[in-house]
C-alpha cells in the first residue's frame, strides 16, 4: 500500500468515526451510550498501540501495561475529584472517600492535580517515569523474555495490592468515582460526551501517526532487530538497553494517555482495571489484531471489547471461557492475527489474479 493512499484511508476513517458518528449522535441517530462505548474502545486502542510497539515490534512481553493505564486514569480522576469541590456527598472540599476515611488534610501528592495542564502532563510523565525506572532496572541487568514478563507481572500485582489499600489515599477498592465536570463542562451533558469522544479519536489518530513514524524510522528497524537477535545488535555497537527503555517508556505513556481519556468517559477508575488479568488482556487485543502491524493492535482492541460487551450481555458467564479459548486459539492457529490473515488472503488473491 502506498504511503499516500494509506494517509487517505487513515483520515477517512477518522472522518467517519471521529466526525460523522458524533454528528449522527447529535442528530439522535446514534445513542449516547453507543458513542460512549466506542469512545472507550478507542482509548483501549491507544493502549494497544503501545503494547504493539513493545511486544509486537520489539518482542518484549510487558505484563504491566494496565498499571500504566491506571496511572494516567488516576491522574485525571484525581483532578476531576478536586474540581468537584464541595459538590460531593459530604459537602467537603476533600474527595468523599477521604471524608469517609477521616482524612483531615489533602495528601501532598494530590496538590499538583488542582491544575489541568499539570494533570495532563503528569498523566503522561508518571507512567513514563515508572516505565523509565522499572525499565532501567530490568533491562540494565538484561532481564528479558519470560523473566521480564514474570517480573512485570509481579510488579502489576504488587501495585494492584498497593492501590487497593486505603492508606495510599487513592480510594482503595472503590477507586475514584462521582466525577462532576472536566474543564468546566458537566460530564453528564451529551455535548461533553461528544467532545470527549472526538478528543479520543483525535488522540488515537495522533498516537497512530506517532507510532507509524517510529516504526518506519531507523528506530523501528532497530526494534525489530532487537526482536530478531538482540545479542547480535549489541555486537554491532548499539546500546540496546537505551532502546528498550525508550520503547517501554513510549508504550507506558501511550497507556497513560489511554487511561486519561478513558476515565472521564466511564466516570470511575478502580484498581480492578490494573489487576494481573487486565494487563494480559491487553496482550490478547494486540495478538488478535496482529502483532507488529499497528493497525492490528487497534482493530484487536476494538474487536475484543465489542465482543466483551456483547457476550456479557447475551451470554453471561461465558466471557472467561471465550477469552481463554481466544488466547489459545490465536497462539495456536492465528499467530499473525486478523491483519496477518487479511494480508495473506490479499496476496493469494493477487497471485490468482
Amino acid at each position, binding site marked *: 500500500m502506498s504511503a499516500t493512499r494509506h494517509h487517505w484511508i487513515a483520515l477517512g476513517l477518522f472522518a467517519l468515526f471521529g466526525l460523522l458518528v458524533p454528528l449522527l449522535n447529535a442528530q439522535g441517530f446514534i445513542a449516547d451510550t453507543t458513542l460512549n462505548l466506542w469512545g472507550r474502545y478507542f482509548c483501549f486502542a491507544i493502549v494497544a498501540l503501545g503494547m504493539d510497539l513493545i*511486544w509486537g515490534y520489539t*518482542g518484549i*512481553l510487558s505484563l504491566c501495561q494496565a498499571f500504566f493505564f491506571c496511572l494516567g486514569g488516576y491522574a485525571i480522576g484525581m483532578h476531576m475529584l478536586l474540581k468537584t469541590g464541595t459538590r460531593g456527598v459530604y459537602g467537603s472540599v476533600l474527595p468523599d472517600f477521604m471524608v469517609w476515611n477521616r482524612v483531615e488534610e489533602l495528601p501532598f501528592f494530590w496538590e499538583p492535580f488542582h491544575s489541568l495542564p499539570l494533570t495532563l502532563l503528569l498523566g503522561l510523565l508518571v507512567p513514563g517515569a515508572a516505565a523509565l525506572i522499572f525499565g532501567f*532496572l*530490568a533491562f*540494565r*541487568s*538484561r*532481564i528479558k*523474555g*519470560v*523473566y521480564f*514478563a*514474570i*517480573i512485570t*507481572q*509481579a*510488579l502489576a*500485582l*504488587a*501495585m494492584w*495490592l*498497593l492501590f*487497593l*489499600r486505603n492508606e495510599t489515599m487513592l480510594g482503595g477498592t472503590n477507586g475514584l468515582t462521582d466525577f462532576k465536570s472536566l474543564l468546566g463542562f458537566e460530564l453528564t451533558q451529551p455535548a461533553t460526551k461528544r467532545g470527549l469522544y472526538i478528543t479520543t479519536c483525535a488522540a488515537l489518530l495522533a498516537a497512530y501517526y506517532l507510532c507509524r513514524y517510529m516504526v518506519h524510522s531507523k528506530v523501528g528497524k532497530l526494534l525489530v532487530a532487537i526482536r530478531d*537477535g538482540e*545479542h*547480535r545488535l549489541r555486537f554491532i555497537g548499539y546500546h540496546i538497553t537505551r532502546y528498550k527503555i525508550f520503547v517501554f517508556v513510549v508504550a507506558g505513556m501511550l497507556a497513560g494517555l489511554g487511561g486519561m481519556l478513558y476515565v472521564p468517559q466511564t466516570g470511575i477508575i478502580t484498581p480492578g482495571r490494573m489487576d*494481573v*488479568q487486565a494487563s*494480559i488482556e491487553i*496482550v*490478547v487485543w494486540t*495478538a488478535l489484531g496482529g502483532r507488529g502491524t499497528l493497525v492490528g493492535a487497534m482493530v484487536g482492541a476494538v474487536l475484543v471489547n465489542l465482543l466483551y460487551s456483547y457476550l456479557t450481555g447475551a451470554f453471561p*458467564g461465558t466471557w*472467561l*471461557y471465550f*477469552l*481463554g*479459548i*481466544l*488466547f*489459545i486459539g*490465536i*497462539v*495456536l492457529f492465528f*499467530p499473525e492475527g486478523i491483519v496477518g490473515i487479511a494480508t495473506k488472503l490479499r496476496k493469494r488473491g493477487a497471485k490468482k489474479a
Partner: protein
Amino acid sequence: MRKTYLPRLLFVAAILTWIAATGSQSWATTAGTDGETRLFKQLSSAEDEAIESAVRELAERGDPAYYELMHGLFNGEVYVWQERAEHAGLVIIGEEEMDEYGDSIVPLFAIYPQRQALRDPQGAAVVVSLYDLEEVETGRKIRALIQPYLMRAELFHPEAQKRRIAAENIGNKGGAAAIPILRQAIESETDGSIKRLKQVSLAKLLLDHQDATVRLQAVQQLEDLNSPLALPLLQARLQAGGTETEPDAKVREQIETAIGSLKRFGFYMQIVQTFFSGLSLGSILVLMALGLAIIYGQIGVINMAHGEFMMIGAYTTYVVQNLCLALLPPAYTDLFFALSLPFAFLTAGGIGLLMELIIIRHLYSRPLESLLATWGISLILIQLARSIFGDLTAVKLPRILSGGYEIAPQIVLPYNRMFIMALAAAIVGGLLILFFRTRFGLRLRATTQNRDMSACVGIPVRRIDALAFLLGTGIAGIAGWAMTLIGNVVPNMGQTYIVDSFLVVVTGGVGKLLGTISAGLGLGIFNKILEPLFEAVYSKVILLGLIILFLQSRPTGLFPARGRSEEL
C-alpha cells in the same frame, strides 16, 4: 458432688454416643425425668418467678446435660413452640434466615440433652417462622444465676475447644469466686495444654489475693509457665497509682524479673514462630515452584496455568473425601486424605499431559506465546471449576493433623503446617533420587542441557518432555492436595501463590533444583520476617524490590548455568 462428677460425665457421654450411634428420635422422651419435666414446664410458663426458681434448681443440680439449655437461656435463644410436645415445648433457635416472603424463619433444635436439629417425620429439618415462637425471657438476675453454671460446665466440657476458651476467659473475668472451681478443673484436666492454660488463669486470679506470699507464688508460677498472656497483667501491677498496683515491694521485685524473663521468652518464641511460618510458606512455594521449574527447565515453557493444577489437586481431594464420606463407615472416613494423594497426582498430571499433547507441544520454541496460551488454559480451568463446584468448598482436616505441638502456652506449631514442610522435604528427596539415580532422571538432565545432542544419542526427547510435564503438573496436584489442609478449596486458589512461585523460579535460576529450593525457602522466610515490620502488602512490594535489586547483580538467578553457549 465433686467426687461423683466425673463418672456421671462419662455416663452421660456414653449415653450420648449411644444415642448418636442409634440415630433414634425417641431418646427425648426416655431421657427426661419427672423432676426435669416439672422444671421445663416452669421455664415455659412465661412467669418470671417460676423461671427463676427453675433456673436456680437446674444450676444447683449442675448436670452438664443442661449445658445447651442454659447456654441458650443465657443468650436468649430458648423459645417455646406450642406444637412441640416434648420438653414442655422448649426449643433452641438457630441462625435467623429470610423466607421467600421476607419473613424471619429459624431452624429449631432440641434443648436436652443434646442440641440436635429437630426433624419432621419425613426427616427434613424443622424450620418455623419467628412469629410462631415465644421467647423465654431471662433478665439480668436470671442470667447471673446461669453464669456460674456455664463457667463450670464449660471448664469441664467434653469438647477441648470449649474448655480452652473457658480456661482463658476465667482468668480475665472470673474473680475470686472462680478460684475453687478452677482448682478442681485443673485437677481433672487431662489435656496438658489446657491444663497449663488453666494454671495460668489460676495464677492470674491469685495475683489479687490479699496474702502477699500467695501473690509472690502466683508471680513465680506465671514466670515458670512462660505464658505471654500474663505480660500485660503483670505490667499493670507495676504502674504507679493504678487500681491494681502491687503494694508489696518484694512482690514488685519478683514481678519485674518475671516480666524480663517472659519478654525474653516471648522474643525467642517470636523468632521460632517467624521461622516456622516462613518455612511453612517457603515449603508451599517450593512445592509450587518445583513443578514450574521442572517444566521450564525441560521445555522452556512458563506454565501460567500451574496454579490451576494445584487447584485440580485440591478439588480431587475434595471429591475423594465426599466419596469416602458416602461409602466408608464413619470411623474410616479420615482415610480419604491418604487415599486422595495418588488421585491428586494423577488427575493433575493427567490433565497436564493432555494439555501438553494437545496444545503445549506446538509452542516449544515460542516461550512468550506459550505463556499466553497457558494463561488462556488457566482462565478456562478456573471457570470450569466454578461452574462444577461453586464458589466455596472445604476439605475437613484429618484428625491426626488437627491441633499442633505446643512449644509454650498459646504458641502452637500446627501439625498441618509441619506436614506440609515434611511433604516438601519428601518430594525434594524423591526428585533428587529420580533425577540422579534413575535412567529417566539422566535422560531428563541430558535433554535439559542439550536437546539436539540428546535426540542424536537416541533419547526419546518428545516422550521425556511429556513425562516432565506430567511430573511437573502432578507435583502441583500434590501441592493442591496439601493446600486443602490449610485453606478452603476455591476455583482461584491457584492464583494466590502463582506470582510468588514465578518469582521463586526467576530468583533460583533456571533448571537448578537447588536454586528453586533455596529461593523458595528464602522468599518464604524473608516474607515472614518483613511482614511484622511492615504490612503484608508493603512487605510484598519490598520483597519484589529486593528481588529486582538482587537480579541487578545476578540476572540469571542464584545458580546460573554458565558455559559457552551460542545464544544468538
